[in-house]
């Protein structure tokens, strides 16, 4: 007796080395394991193909899902040219402008939102922005809004993740047709937040603290 496993893999080269019993290699980008959001039929096709591997009598089994679809790639901050005259240059003001779109997203999605890792309410995001600006430009090293259970470095990371989620969800509510590429380009090229995150990451990369340095790589490149 034991557990029978089957699964999906994104990097086929890794499965060839680790040799798990049954794996279906899928051609999608990271974060898009089941292929397409809100496409139950396509997701079922992938899952059934994965479960079909359970019938094999010997392994390791590593099969590729076909058709081979080119994943949609997206840009990092350093790969996007910033607008010379952004619509809003103050991220604190920008956060307020995005709020109606964000709140509509939450309503449309039955309360589901990716915002919340930092535990700071989105209505207090102006305070978060103020701290990130002070940390980046004024050598401020901490903030009273940081929960005790998080180090400063991790608090920054969770705040940046929450702000990105807040912006992306607000943008998807404002313009549901935008592609992954367009969403990432918008954040980095057009928003004041994108500019702040780039400067923040640069500041963190030059910090003496290794944890701060490590977190820098998780927020922007």
């Amino acid at each position, binding site marked *: 007796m034991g557990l029978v496993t089957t699964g999906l893999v994104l990097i086929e080269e890794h499965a060839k080395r680790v040799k798990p019993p049954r794996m279906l290699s899928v051609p999608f980008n990271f974060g898009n394991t089941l292929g397409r959001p809100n496409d139950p039929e396509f*997701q079922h096709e992938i899952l059934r193909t994965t479960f079909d591997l359970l019938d094999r009598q010997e392994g390791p089994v590593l099969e590729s899902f076909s058709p081979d679809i080119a994943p949609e790639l997206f840009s990092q901050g350093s790969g996007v040219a910033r607008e010379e005259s952004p619509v809003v240059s103050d991220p604190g003001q920008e956060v307020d402008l995005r709020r109606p779109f964000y709140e509509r997203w939450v309503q449309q999605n*039955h309360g589901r939102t990716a915002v919340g890792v930092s535990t700071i309410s989105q209505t207090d995001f102006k305070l978060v922005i103020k701290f990130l600006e002070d940390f980046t430009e004024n050598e401020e090293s901490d903030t009273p809004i940081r929960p005790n259970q998080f180090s400063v470095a991790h608090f920054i990371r969770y705040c940046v993740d929450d702000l990105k989620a807040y912006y992306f969800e607000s943008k998807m509510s404002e313009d549901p047709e935008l592609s*992954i590429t367009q969403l990432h380009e918008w954040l980095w090229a057009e928003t004041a937040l994108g500019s702040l995150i780039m400067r923040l990451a640069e500041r963190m990369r030059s910090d003496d603290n290794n944890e701060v340095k490590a977190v820098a790589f998780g927020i922007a490149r």
Partner: protein
Amino acid sequence: MPRLEALSEAQRKMLLNWPCPDNDDTPWTTMGKPLSESKVAMVTTSGIHLRKDAPFRSLKGGDTSYRIIPRDSDPADIIQSHTSIGFDRTTSYRDINISFPVDRLEELVQSGYIGELSNNYYSYMGAINDVTGLMEDSGPEVATKLLSEEVDVVLLVPT
């Protein structure tokens, strides 16, 4: 897989040199009964968890801890703290099933394709480059829990 040749050189190099274990063989368990009579659980490496749980952390070697996600959790209570700028998260904002196919599994039970589902699913972080803690502690711990829940089949889903 994402076509490695389509990725940036830095990302391609990083992935090809990722320190994953080079195993010589494969542990093998044959299905003891049809899937339509089996209990299925899901293990994800998308770093999701309940809002009340501690988020995953950026640690040297990676965070090898895990979180339990009860199957009846409201999707509004589930968030993600996986650290990476290497993957897009906007699709998971649109549809949690993209890397945690909870609804799809329920539908497969309703259609009779799967027998039943376990009461708990399990979540790890991805991007672990030292799997020692996973192999020695958190992996066996979750396997023991799955066996005690009388799970037959485990679906592994990365992000």
